């Protein structure tokens, strides 16, 4: 082991004693521990491993040398395929979370057919790869035991069903509760927040309302010796377990966002410029992105992507695109459109660049902040700067500084004060933005970037810039 490069354990991989994830020289590995040897062997011999990977339900992996294991007690080491960008459930729109939930149930169904079962149903075990959800925890499967209930039931309800029900029946923004509750939305809270009418919907009534009541009721007798609530005393036939899982699947599939959430007319295309202006903007953005691609750029972050008009241009220029937006309805619409088109290179993400996802969990390192996950070669910031500078009072120099932290290249749009979109932001407030001018913008950005290319957008007073961060 001594001649191996140092291993660094992934900070989010500590809960499960069956193994853990680590990196050596940037390469991702997973150690499987001896305590899990029998289940790992069954995972292979049942054909489940191969079937899951074959159907794209589980991320592929290849065996690695056992002496790569950084800790004692390894029975195997594998090298899973890397995911281009790691995202978290609180950064997904409704349909992304719903697809992740259905994927989890699909994995369980495939496991059931082979005498295996899921050991957990965490939202963090799902990632998006090429536009589709995929399980990343290869150690999530164990042999099913006769008469055993579905152990991840509670976790599934807290990580998936509760936030989905809240988004569908209360408000699309409530997925963000997952940011506060890393172990999933507490069911008593979900039950309280859900509208009364959901008590008459069989799935939600059972899996959330009654489930929450049962939790509260049995929390008290957990310590008593003869409460009958000991997990081992609850048994369930295989048939009933299948019925429960089928019911969960139907419940998830039945959840829909209210129509107004995703079908706002003209919502995406609300712009202040003409068709000629739009064509001109698209042509310039394409030219600038192709120039970055020609220098070897592969990953783009489209910040304020809305429903992805320019993300598509970046994808066409050869980039893998993270399309972030603050508006959950825009992210939802974007995801649905990409899914329908089978687009694989764009990942829509719910994020506010003025308040990026923080690091959460144990020691504040378990789930990395959005800025810590910055891996782009270019940031695309179109019709964004005025929202930050005027909408959020961020000084232009600070906007530039943040964008320079995200990537070495920038394609940015300057929107002058006379522009109707800026005027709209100023409509109800005092104009305290004396420095918000083209000169002020250039001066502020010159502290973090050099301008490589610039072009005015036809038929408007907006200007597009391609910049390179000063090192």
């Amino acid at each position, binding site marked *: 082991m001594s001649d191996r490069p140092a291993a660094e354990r992934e900070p989010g991989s500590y*809960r*499960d*004693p*069956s193994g853990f994830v680590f990196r050596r020289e940037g390469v991702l590995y997973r150690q499987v521990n001896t*305590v*899990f040897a*029998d*289940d790992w062997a069954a995972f292979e011999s049942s054909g489940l491993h191969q079937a899951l990977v074959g159907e794209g339900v589980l991320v592929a992996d290849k065996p690695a040398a056992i002496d790569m294991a950084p800790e004692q007690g390894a029975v195997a080491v594998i090298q899973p395929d890397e995911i281009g960008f790691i995202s978290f459930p609180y950064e997904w729109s409704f349909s992304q979370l719903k697809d992740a939930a259905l994927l989890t149930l699909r994995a369980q169904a495939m496991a059931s057919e082979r005498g295996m079962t899921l*050991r*957990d149903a965490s939202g963090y075990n799902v990632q998006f790869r090429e536009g589709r959800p995929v399980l990343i925890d290869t150690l999530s499967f*164990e042999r099913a035991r006769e008469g055993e*209930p*579905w*152990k*991840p*039931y*509670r*976790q599934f*309800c807290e990580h998936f069903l509760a936030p989905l029900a809240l988004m569908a029946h209360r408000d699309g923004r409530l997925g963000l509760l997952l940011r506060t509750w890393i172990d999933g939305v507490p069911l008593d809270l979900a039950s309280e927040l859900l509208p009364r009418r959901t008590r008459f919907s069989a799935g939600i009534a*059972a*899996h959330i309302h*009654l*489930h929450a*009541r*049962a*939790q*509260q*009721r*049995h*929390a008290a*007798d*957990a310590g008593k010796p003869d*409460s009958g*609530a*000991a*997990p081992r005393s*609850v*048994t*369930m036939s295989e*048939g*009933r*377990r*299948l*019925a*429960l899982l*089928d*019911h969960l699947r*139907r419940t998830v599939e039945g959840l829909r966002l209210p129509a107004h959430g995703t079908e706002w007319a003209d919502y995406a295309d609300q712009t202040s410029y003409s068709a000629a202006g739009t064509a001109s903007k698209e042509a310039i953005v394409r030219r600038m992105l192709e120039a970055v691609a020609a220098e070897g750029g592969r990953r783009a972050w489209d910040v304020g992507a809305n429903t992805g008009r320019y993300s598509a241009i970046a994808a066409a220029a050869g980039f893998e695109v993270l399309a972030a937006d603050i508006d959950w309805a825009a992210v939802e619409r974007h995801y649905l459109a990409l899914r329908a088109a089978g687009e694989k290179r764009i990942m829509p993400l719910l994020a506010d660049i003025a308040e990026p996802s923080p690091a959460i969990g144990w020691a504040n390192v378990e789930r990395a902040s959005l800025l810590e996950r910055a891996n782009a070669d270019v940031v695309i910031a179109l019709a964004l700067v005025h929202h930050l500078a005027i909408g959020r009072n961020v000084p232009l120099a600070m906007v530039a500084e943040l964008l320079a932290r995200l990537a070495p290249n920038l394609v940015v749009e300057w929107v002058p004060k006379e522009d109707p979109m800026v005027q709209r932001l100023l409509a109800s407030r005092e104009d305290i933005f004396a420095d918000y001018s083209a000169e002020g913008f250039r001066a502020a950005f010159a502290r973090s970037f050099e301008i490589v290319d610039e072009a005015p957008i036809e038929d408007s007073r907006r200007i597009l810039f391609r910049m390179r961060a000063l090192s």
Partner: protein
Amino acid sequence: MRLVFAYIDPGAGSLIIQAIIAAMVSIPFFFRNAIRSAFERFRRKPADGSGAANATITPEDSGAAPSDPE
């Protein structure tokens, strides 16, 4: 020997309620499955003897055994 049991807490209340819910939903579940398999048997074996002209299984029929039609 099983050394690794549930590393997550399945929750006492969650275990009990899932057993109750499973018992309830298993009734329509099995009913649906029974209807489905009866339907499939019927489709696969059209009334024996009669309608011999149509008795051969078409390619659609042989493929029409979805594990879940929904």
